[in-house]
């Protein structure tokens, strides 16, 4: 049995890759295991300039899940290219850069910046971050905006573009079709569902941003349903995520 998986722009030794934001830029986890064992690495979101992100607390635990509202904190695309990506060069594992922004212009700016790096192999267009005031999830829940940003990024990019879909929509297939029509080479599904948890002692949301993105096994049934629906409707590569912890979980996404 071979686990080799071929996707636009990517040849993966195996189909296992850490989702964006769960892995930083790879340095820390390289202490735990050999990054060469991963199918690919999706790095933390990059925006045009450095971002501080939201106030803390930024995470909370829920039943079989967690909420996070990091708010796209990152050192900005130039710093990522110059200071973070070189660390990953020695590894054989392909790198997927996660592109974020508040405006179409910012998305395009980040995309173009990555064109100058040879340390990545594909872009993941993050139109689905629920934790920033502007941009982020709006792009992921409004079909026209999603189309526009996908089209512009695809035009600007020398790398294949995977569009990361938000599950916070009434009809995921409509959204998947829209970004596919706009030129997406692939999809990645799903980002987090917007949720909230209350601190009972203080009677206010635990997360400073109030709402956060729900991830983990709790949302796996929703991820599987959405991937299934899109698979029935469209013939486009899908990178699946959402609550994957065990090998069985991986199989369930096929």
């Amino acid at each position: 049995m071979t686990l080799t998986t071929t996707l636009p722009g990517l040849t993966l030794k195996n189909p296992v890759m850490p989702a964006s934001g769960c892995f930083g830029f790879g340095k820390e986890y390289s202490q735990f295991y050999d990054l060469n064992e991963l199918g690919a690495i999706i790095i933390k979101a990059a925006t045009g300039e450095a971002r501080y992100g939201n106030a803390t607390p930024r995470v909370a635990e829920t039943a079989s899940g967690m909420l996070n509202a990091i708010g796209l904190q990152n050192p900005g695309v130039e710093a990522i290219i110059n200071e973070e990506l070189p660390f990953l060069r020695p590894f054989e594992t392909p790198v997927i850069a996660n592109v974020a922004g508040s405006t179409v212009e910012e998305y395009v700016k980040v995309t173009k910046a990555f064109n100058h790096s040879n340390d990545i192999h594909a872009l993941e267009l993050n139109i689905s971050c629920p934790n920033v005031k502007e941009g982020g999830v709006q792009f992921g829940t409004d079909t026209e905006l999603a189309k526009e940003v996908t089209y512009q990024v695809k035009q600007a990019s020398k790398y294949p573009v995977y569009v990361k879909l938000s599950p916070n929509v009434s009809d995921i297939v409509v959204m998947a079709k829209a970004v596919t029509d706009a030129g997406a080479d692939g999809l990645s599904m799903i980002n987090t569902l917007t949720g909230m948890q209350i601190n009972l002692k203080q009677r206010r949301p635990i997360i400073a941003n109030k709402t956060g993105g729900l991830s983990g096994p709790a949302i796996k049934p929703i991820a599987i349903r959405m991937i299934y629906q899109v698979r029935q409707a469209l013939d486009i590569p899908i990178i699946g995520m959402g609550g994957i912890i065990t090998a069985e979980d991986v199989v369930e996404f096929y």
Partner: protein
Amino acid sequence: MISKQLLKIKSHLCIAQDTFEVVLHSPLARELKPGQFIHIALKHHMLRRPVSVANVDVGAETFTIVFKIFGEGTRALSNCKAGGDFLDAILPCGSYYPIDRLQLDHALIVGGGIGGVPPLYYLAQSLKKKGVQITSVLGFQTKSHVFYEDKFQLLGDTYVATNDGTYGAKGFVTDIITELSTDIDYYFACGPTAMLKAVTDQLETQEGYISLEERMGCGVGTCYACVVPLKEDPSKSKKICKDGPVFYANEVILP
């Protein structure tokens, strides 16, 4: 180097109300420094729980953690058993009190409650070994919460305050610090944010180190869950799990 290990539980003791002292075995014990923590995974919980190193026995390759039941995770931890059970933990995590780099004759230790007292005990032990004179001020909510006073006494002058006055002085650690007439080189504080704010204000002219708490995701610096803004440029931050939990007192803006 940080790694993920299954730690054997050597002993498991209730030492105060809802407060437990657990001794764990690890070949990495000798690498654990005062102020560092371990990040513990618990079945049926998505997030690990950070708990400070409260002491180390290099010879036995063991170290101690002390924790209090706060919610579901610490409750599960309190139900672990010595003998059979193993703890899945990442260690060593975070920064430590840089005592080897400091010119130190007399240290003031200020600890508040369950978050503050355990890591400072390991620190006090380490200072004592270096021949540093220690004055400790420990704050607790109420008498039944008090622990480790005797252990600190063995290492130097120790004062205890309880908020409700059921034990030691009534009031806060800052009330005791006001009364102290000793000269200190550095202070080392750990505890609730409100206490850290009061102490850093009170000891503004002193050099000191503080240890922070925040809700954590990864515990190793990848997820940006646990940042704290920097005084010199609040648009910049450090990560409490990796750059902290120990910071130079004037380095960070307390939330």
